[in-house]
């Protein structure tokens, strides 16, 4: 398959402006004749639905939670980047662009990233106008903090709840459009298939989670803003409901899946405590601004941290990366923690943890200042672990947090199915092989507020759209597909619960396709995942019926998809014989143990195309060109 990125040629600084001018427009009076279906109500989905409603389109928006305000964007803690240079510390659009391309280990499209950096400034303006209560200085100006992978302070924040406040801003804009009748909202409604007519995305099939009613919704374009697939790993920082079903079923209808093996491990999460554990909790990266990470110098040192003198502590990030210190990017910090634990320096009961210590900064700034900055995080830590981080250092360990991979999209955010647009974490576009902190919120809102509102108009103005109704053969076929999946899940009546399969899959993917990967392990995973999947369809036990509120049935459908997606992740990881960003192949590393890229052979986007249940997917490659930021080995030393 040929993948046309449609990135404008010419000087990168003017590319987006020129492209916007070249896009065809839809006349204001004609906009209300177009129906747009938006799936997902997080930062990307809510901002897209609200902005398109404001423009005058007919919008329908769907989310599986009981309210659009619950979407998992709400859990983002630390902040959102913008190249405002309010602090006169040398920031610029170009520097944010540079940091993001470098942070992504040269596996993202330059054109997309530049546009993202440009739009970052508009996002802050928009959010402040909406009433997002960002942190302020005494003079009333906006405050900033710094984040991993950057040497300037460009992160805007609202205490430790930045995602919540940005989402509530988008949610309120969305509710305003709902109140005005421009958007119709369908909460507790899950998308289970895509309707493709004449090669164009023309609708979705949904199931009401309240009473199981299946419905085909027809539209002129479909937007998926359904988030990432980190829950393949079972234990992740994602919400329990976060799932890949919408993008996976679109993949099976022909949308190409890009870079599935690019997953991000967040270095600062609370370690696992037992086998009943249902999810992992993140401690914001912003804590690395003031906390110092260390392990005991002697392996197996079980003394309490307060009794280990400074001379017997190894502040390994400060030692290995003196210029970035504790603020190295996430992939590097995560791997360094793994290295320390693998060599016996880990702390805590399981020895899978390192200390994040605030003693020095409490001495320097006082407890009050630290509590003002991180009070809610400290409290959350204490609630979960029963330990007080003002007195005892936090124990942290890496966990799956974000997925850079996702459905392939072009510069207009359109997938390989015309009329199917993909926004936010659900697409693959801007973060390459590693996302920098405080960039996910930026991308979700750039996509939803400022990009889709322009690019979708061009599609609607130029596409030839036939009349389609809910009883079109393609819609009936999609409903029949959903019915058959549901029947199979409910009819198996086996012996094992859905969760037990999910846990087992998660362990396989974490062990073989997690923080470090190698050929033998990936091949092993590729042989055991299909066996597990077979067992799932033979022995899964899902009780109850379709026609009721049935949380086991919801989970079963999502886990069935994870069992397929997990395999594709391993296949992609096996195929990419280099290390880059979050994808660390043990066979490819520098003598110092850093990721060793192979730009000659792997400077491309790996895009996988579904070819039926029994064939293996086909790989297409979109080559990446770097005209502005010259690929070098990333150095944070």
């Amino acid at each position, binding site marked *: 398959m040929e993948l046309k990125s449609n990135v404008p040629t010419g000087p990168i600084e003017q590319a987006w402006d020129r492209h916007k001018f070249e896009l065809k427009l839809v006349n204001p009076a004609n906009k209300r004749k177009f129906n747009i279906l938006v799936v997902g109500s997080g930062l990307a989905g809510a901002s897209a639905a609200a902005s398109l409603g404001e423009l005058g389109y007919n919008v329908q928006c769907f989310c599986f939670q009981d309210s659009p305000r619950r979407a*998992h964007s709400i859990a983002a803690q630390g902040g959102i980047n913008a190249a405002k240079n309010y602090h006169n510390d040398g920031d610029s659009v170009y520097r944010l662009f540079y940091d993001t391309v470098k942070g992504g280990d040269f596996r993202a499209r330059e054109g997309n990233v530049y546009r993202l950096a440009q739009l970052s400034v508009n996002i802050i303006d928009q959010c402040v106008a909406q009433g997002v209560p960002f942190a302020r200085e005494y003079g009333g100006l906006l405050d900033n903090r710094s984040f991993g992978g950057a040497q300037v302070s460009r992160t805007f924040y609202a205490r430790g709840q930045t995602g919540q406040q940005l989402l509530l801003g988008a949610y309120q804009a969305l509710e305003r459009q709902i109140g005005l009748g421009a958007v119709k909202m369908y909460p507790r409604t899950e998308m289970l298939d895509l309707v493709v007519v004449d090669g164009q995305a023309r609708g979705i099939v949904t199931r009401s989670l309240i009473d199981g009613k299946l419905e085909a919704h027809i539209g002129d374009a479909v937007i998926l803003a359904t988030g990432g697939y980190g829950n393949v790993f079972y234990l992740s920082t994602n919400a329990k409901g976060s799932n890949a079903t919408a993008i996976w079923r679109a993949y099976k209808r022909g949308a190409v899946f890009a870079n599935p093996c690019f997953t991000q491990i967040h270095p600062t999460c609370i370690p696992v405590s037992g086998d009943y554990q249902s999810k992992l909790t993140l401690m914001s990266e912003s804590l690395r601004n003031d906390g110092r990470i260390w392990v005991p110098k002697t392996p197996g040192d079980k003394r309490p941290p307060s009794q280990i003198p400074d001379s017997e502590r190894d502040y390994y990030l400060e030692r290995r990366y003196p210029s970035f210190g504790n603020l190295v990017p996430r992939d590097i910090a995560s791997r360094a923690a793994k290295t320390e634990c693998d060599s016996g320096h880990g702390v805590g009961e399981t020895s899978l943890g390192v200390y994040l210590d605030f003693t020095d900064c409490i001495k320097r700034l006082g407890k009050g200042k630290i509590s003002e900055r991180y009070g809610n995080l400290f409290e959350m830590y204490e609630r979960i672990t029963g330990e007080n981080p003002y007195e005892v250092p936090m124990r942290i360990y890496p966990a799956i947090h974000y997925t850079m991979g996702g459905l392939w999209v072009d510069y207009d955010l359109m997938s390989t199915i015309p009329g199917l647009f993909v926004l936010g974490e659900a697409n693959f576009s801007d973060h390459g092989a590693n996302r920098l902190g405080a960039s996910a919120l930026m991308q979700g809102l750039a996509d939803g507020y400022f990009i889709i509102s322009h690019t979708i108009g061009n599609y609607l103005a130029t596409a030839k759209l036939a009349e389609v109704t809910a009883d079109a053969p393609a819609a009936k076929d999609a409903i029949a597909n959903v019915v058959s999946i549901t029947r199979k899940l409910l009819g198996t009546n086996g012996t094992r619960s859905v969760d037990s399969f999910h846990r087992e899959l998660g362990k396989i993917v974490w062990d073989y396709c997690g923080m470090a990967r190698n050929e033998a392990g990936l091949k092993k995973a590729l042989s055991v995942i299909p066996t597990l999947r077979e067992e799932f369809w033979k022995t899964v036990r899902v009780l109850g019926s379709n026609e009721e509120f049935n949380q086991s049935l919801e989970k079963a459908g999502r886990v069935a998809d994870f069992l397929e997606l997990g395999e594709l992740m391993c296949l992609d990881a096996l195929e990419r014989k280099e290390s880059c960003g979050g994808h660390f192949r043990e066979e490819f590393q520098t003598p110092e143990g850093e990721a060793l890229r192979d730009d000659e052979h792997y400077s491309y986007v790996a895009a996988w195309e579904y070819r039926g249940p029994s064939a293996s997917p086909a790989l297409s490659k979109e080559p990446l060109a770097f005209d502005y930021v010259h690929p070098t080995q990333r150095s944070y030393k």
Partner: protein
Amino acid sequence: MKIILHIWRQKSSQDKGRMVRYEHRDVNEHMSFLEMLDVLNEQLITKGEDPIAFDHDCREGICGMCGFMINGKAHGGFPRTTVCQLHMRRFKDGDELYLEPWRASAFPVVKDLAVNRSSFDRIIAAGGFISVPTGSAQDANNILVPKQGADLAMDAAACIGCGACVAACPNAAAALFVGAKISHLGHLPQGQPERHRRALSMIRQMNVEGFANCSNIGECEATCPKDIKLEVIARSNRDFLKASCLERPAAEVAGVG
């Protein structure tokens, strides 16, 4: 440890519902409350019984999706704690706990412990926003917000919309939820142009949804997992009163054509 649970089971909004007793012997003090229910559900599935339905999503205390009554207290009644962040170390071996869904006619039961809170969304849709279409904003630092105003706005904006305030209130009033949004936006200069209109629309919608009036009991403040203060209710009452006095019929549209 062992916990005796009495859980409200109700198949759907039409069903009558009843309390059912469960003996849970596999409780570990490090489990969260919801993980304890996960383990119970796994056991029910093995026995072929319908697992207990409850709402939850982020399990970090921020999405606001979880929540039910534990022994008559919303989220269990521990300070600043949603039920997903409540750990079993707060309970003792042999404790007997009664779990019920939020009780309010504006929150009909969906199943077991899950309720429908769409009424909250409709209150926000009525006026809980600042009208600023995408693309129409000025540079962010052109709007100066005194730090104190920003901090007070943030205190109120921390509301997660879980509904515990309604469930804890003897009147099932939504005054704390509504007051939090009115205060959040009212503390900011950006929120001033629509301040009075917002108070009128939101409070009217609140009444339409069947939430009762506030009688200043304060259970909501005591139970709020995000520490929203009663002060927000005073503030929204003030805005509402002022708005009611100032309200005028909408002006005739002038200059058409």
